[in-house]
């Protein structure tokens, strides 16, 4: 479970202060698929960065799987990111000089994991996204949709509990976007909690729950998905709404 209580984040320059998040509260239950929407500058990326331990926050409390993140040293945060969180980026963020196999291998290399186990995981992850045959290709030799699937394989190879996606379809055409979305849904079906930042209301509607951010806070204009949920998810969703 991911729980943020009264999280605030202010970006300061010499002249101005920007409140990216203001007393932000959110609880995400295990297995949920949440879409975060909102206008540019509303704090979506800041929220995702803090949720993914990429950035610190100024005040508040953040519990990830029961562990208080506040004040954790960089090493522990890196370890948590590596073991519990998978990232999918808008521009894929594949390493251009490494082939697909080595790209998926990147997060696994930061674990004390033998070469054999890493190979099995990489092959399995690539198979899951349908790119086994492209293991020796360079990212530039793949289409945008394929590159994003590699990024998803990279995120999944480490068996994360949380998958954070930042505009995962932002650079894809509609057909590829739909394929990626279907892939995310199937991953979510396997029990991985997904938080997805998107501008696309179509995609957002496919999530279990929508969070609408405005000026660093969850807005009252919050939308709720219209897709059918199973009983458990509906209950957890309702509990979450109460918490917000």
């Amino acid at each position, binding site marked *: 479970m991911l729980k943020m209580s009264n999280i605030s984040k202010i970006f300061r320059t010499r002249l101005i202060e920007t409140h990216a998040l203001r007393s932000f509260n959110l609880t995400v239950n295990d297995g949920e698929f949440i879409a975060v929407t909102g206008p540019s500058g509303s704090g979506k990326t800041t929220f*995702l960065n803090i949720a993914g*331990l*990429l950035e610190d926050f100024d005040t508040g409390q953040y519990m990830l799987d029961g562990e208080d993140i506040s004040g954790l040293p960089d*090493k522990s945060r890196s370890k948590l*990111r590596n*073991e519990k969180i998978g990232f999918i980026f808008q521009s894929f*963020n594949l*390493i251009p000089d490494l082939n697909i196999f080595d790209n998926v291998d*990147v997060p696994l290399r*930061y674990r004390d994991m033998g070469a054999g186990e890493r190979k099995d995981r990489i092959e399995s992850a690539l198979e899951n996204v349908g790119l086994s045959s492209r293991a020796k290709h360079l990212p530039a030799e793949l289409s945008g949709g394929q590159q994003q699937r590699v990024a998803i394989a990279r995120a999944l190879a480490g068996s994360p509990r949380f998958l954070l996606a930042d505009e995962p379809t932002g650079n894809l055409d509609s057909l590829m976007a739909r394929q990626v979305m279907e892939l995310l849904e199937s991953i979510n079906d396997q029990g991985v909690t997904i938080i997805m930042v998107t501008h696309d209301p179509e995609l957002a509607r496919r999530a279990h729950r929508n969070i609408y951010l405005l000026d660093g806070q969850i807005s009252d204009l919050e939308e709720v998905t219209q897709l059918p949920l199973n009983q458990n998810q509906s209950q957890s969703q309702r509990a979450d709404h109460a918490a917000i």
Partner: protein
Amino acid sequence: MEIRPILSAMFRNKLGAILIATQIAVTLAIICNGAFIVYKRYQTMNRPTGMDIENIFAITSEGIGSNHNARAVAAQDLEVIRAIPGVIAASNASSVPLSGSGWGETMQTTLDDNAPTTGTGVYMMSDQAIETLGVNLISGRNFTPDEMLYRDENSGQIPNVIMITQALSDQLFPDENETALGKTVFFDSRPIEVIGIIEHMHGSWVTWDALAQVSIIPVLTLSNQTRYMIRTEPGMRDQVMPQVEEALANVNSQRILRQLRSLEEFAARSYAGDNTIAVVMMTVIVLLVIITAMGIIGLVSFLVNQRTKQIGTRRALGAQKFHVIRYFLVENWLITTIGLSVGLVLTILLNMYLVEHFEMPRLDRIYLPIGLVAIWCLGFIAALGPARKAAHVSPAIATRTV
């Protein structure tokens, strides 16, 4: 360790790596050979002379007029010099060792036309030669005053006795059990008895192979010009030098006193060429090391800046700061190692060229491992700064559109 992916990435962007590896190869070749040249030069400059070089100086007196009585002047001058506090011994000297100027002669053990001859640097000095030079007489005896030969400037007369260095003795009598002491040898084809063996002494010409083959004969050549060598108590040389000049001027003003120089100064002048080469070579080495270090810093900094987003992504995927630093250090280590591998071959080829064309000795093997380790360390230190900077890239960069 990520050696395979690093190598794989490196080979896809190889221009920068090739340039730095080439620079490292050239640096190793020049540093090893340059350091060897410097070492050899300093070794030559600092080899033992056998003399008390720090406490010896010389002065030349040139009498004016035709009534100059060289023998009397020399006797009086030496008496005055020896009376100066701090002076251990003083002697006339036909030339100054290590000065680049002197008299050479041939010696042989028999007068047979086919008998081998050997060269020697000859010094005409007084019975205080041994004390004045501070050399070690290991066998035989010193000259006595009555063995002194006072001869005219144009006379070819030689005395009956001679002291020679061990090196010359060994050259004349190569048999291990034989020594020149007590034997009559032929000095410029004339017989002369060896009465003393000096352990070691350098002659005048520092580049001469037979530099240590030195002879001293008890002679004062009677001419207007007399050179004196003076040895002082340790540390008193600089104080005594002007006193000697003043005393000689006072005792006889009808002369010119010149070339008041320490033996160290004579040696420094003789070794000026070696010293210049050593300094130039060291400067080249230092500059090359700085340029190579800057090249490495430049390349690693460039790679860090070029890969900012990639570093952020790696951090987002779980890389700790240590992993980022290690990545760049390993990458740089690989480039350095490739450069050094090529550099090893280049070093040996350069040395072979120098041996063939400049009569340089063959490179001591120890220079290669020392050079390798030194450049590995240089590469590590140079890459550490940019690598640490890379480690400070925020993982949040990964979600920004850079």
